[in-house]
């Protein structure tokens, strides 16, 4: 693999993760339990789409096939998508969504704090922008984890189940393959394996405040780095890509 191909791959992984998170959160539009949350989730969805676009722009700038950011988003199949499995998990009930976002938001704040020092100016710029946004995403999801956990018997049960359920997709956040290794060693990317301890500490702190416990299982599922997904991604792409694939000349 050349340097450019590696950087392309790295940017696609981060960009795809944001696009898919953005898509999932966008599905809440007009469906949340209160108007304020409907607006919150769709606002956060927009941030993810914006960050995803920034990553895909950087990806497109090193793509030997000269694909545009839109081509990258709309013309790749499931096996060519590299988003984290966590991102594609269904919204479920509100606790499922909050648990999914929370586990990622804690990670994102740590990730972008490190990426600020990237040797690649564009990535460092995305990190500066992203950090401001993922911080309030974290604030939003962490406050809901506490509210649900320290809420009623029912809300406590649901958020605990949701955290337990999403837990198996968190190992992947810290997974490194050869591409990640080389990109991290060159100072462009982040060695995410080094973020795991800090992540676990912060997650534990919020769970404790929420009267919740850390999951007691070690089940884990990974695969996104090679484009192997859970069944959910295909359904997302089928819907998301339908229009641009059916009408390739469509313009906004």
């Amino acid at each position, binding site marked *: 693999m050349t340097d450019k191909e590696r950087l392309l791959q790295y940017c696609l992984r981060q960009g795809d993760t944001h696009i898919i998170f*953005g898509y999932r959160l966008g599905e809440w539009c007009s469906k949340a339990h209160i*108007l*304020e949350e409907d*607006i*919150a989730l769709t*606002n*956060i*969805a*927009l*941030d*993810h*789409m*914006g*960050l995803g*676009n*920034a990553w895909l722009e950087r990806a497109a700038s090193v793509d030997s096939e000269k694909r545009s950011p839109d081509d990258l988003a709309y013309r790749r199949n499931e096996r060519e998508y590299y988003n984290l499995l966590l991102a594609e998990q269904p919204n479920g009930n509100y606790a499922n969504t909050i648990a999914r976002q929370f586990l990622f938001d804690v990670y994102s704040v740590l990730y972008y704090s490190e990426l600020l020092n990237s040797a690649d*100016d*564009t990535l*460092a*710029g*995305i990190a*500066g*922008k*992203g*950090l*401001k*946004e993922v*911080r*309030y995403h*974290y*604030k*939003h999801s*962490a*406050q809901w984890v506490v509210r649900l956990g320290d809420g009623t018997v029912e809300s406590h049960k649901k958020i605990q189940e949701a955290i337990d359920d999403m837990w198996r997709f968190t190992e992947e956040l810290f997974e490194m393959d050869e591409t990640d290794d080389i990109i991290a060693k060159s100072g462009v990317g982040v060695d995410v394996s080094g973020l795991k301890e800090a992540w676990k500490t912060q997650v534990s702190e919020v769970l404790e405040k929420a009267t919740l416990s850390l999951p007691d299982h070690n089940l884990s599922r990974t695969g996104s780095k090679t484009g192997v997904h859970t069944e959910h991604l295909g359904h997302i792409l089928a819907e998301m890509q339908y229009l641009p694939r059916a009408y390739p000349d469509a313009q906004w």
Partner: protein
Amino acid sequence: MVEELNIEKVWELLNKVPDPEIPVLSVVELGVVRDVYVKENRAEVTITPTYSGCPAMKTFSDDIISQLKKNGFEEVIIHTAYNPPWTTDWMSETARTKLKEYGIAPPQGLAKNSLKLFAKNLPIPCPRCESTDTRRISEFGSTACKSLHQCNTCLDTFDYFKCI
């Protein structure tokens, strides 16, 4: 008849391009325009997004291009830069006053102090009656950059331009 096209002229023209969501502020006052380069009748303008997913960005670009082309430039190129990231700390006092007069409470405090988890929020004075006895109704408002508040004194609801 053609006025000389220089950098000052471009800034002056851009200062007349309103934010599509908050028309009392220009794209310059908002801090979105970061740099301007002029060579003969070609202008290059570097803008930075307020929020990375801000849907107004496309409108910003289109409005800047049309404003400059209308005023003698033949070629206008827009660049997007993310670094340094946009902050409300760049907003001038004049811009803050305009926001307030428009009915939007301007950002309070400094961005770097505002993002701690469970931190106590600074009181947001009501833009209509100045009372600081206000409460937040929703952290996310009608656009990414605003939250929704209510004044406990005059009971009016108002938007707050978030400090970021």
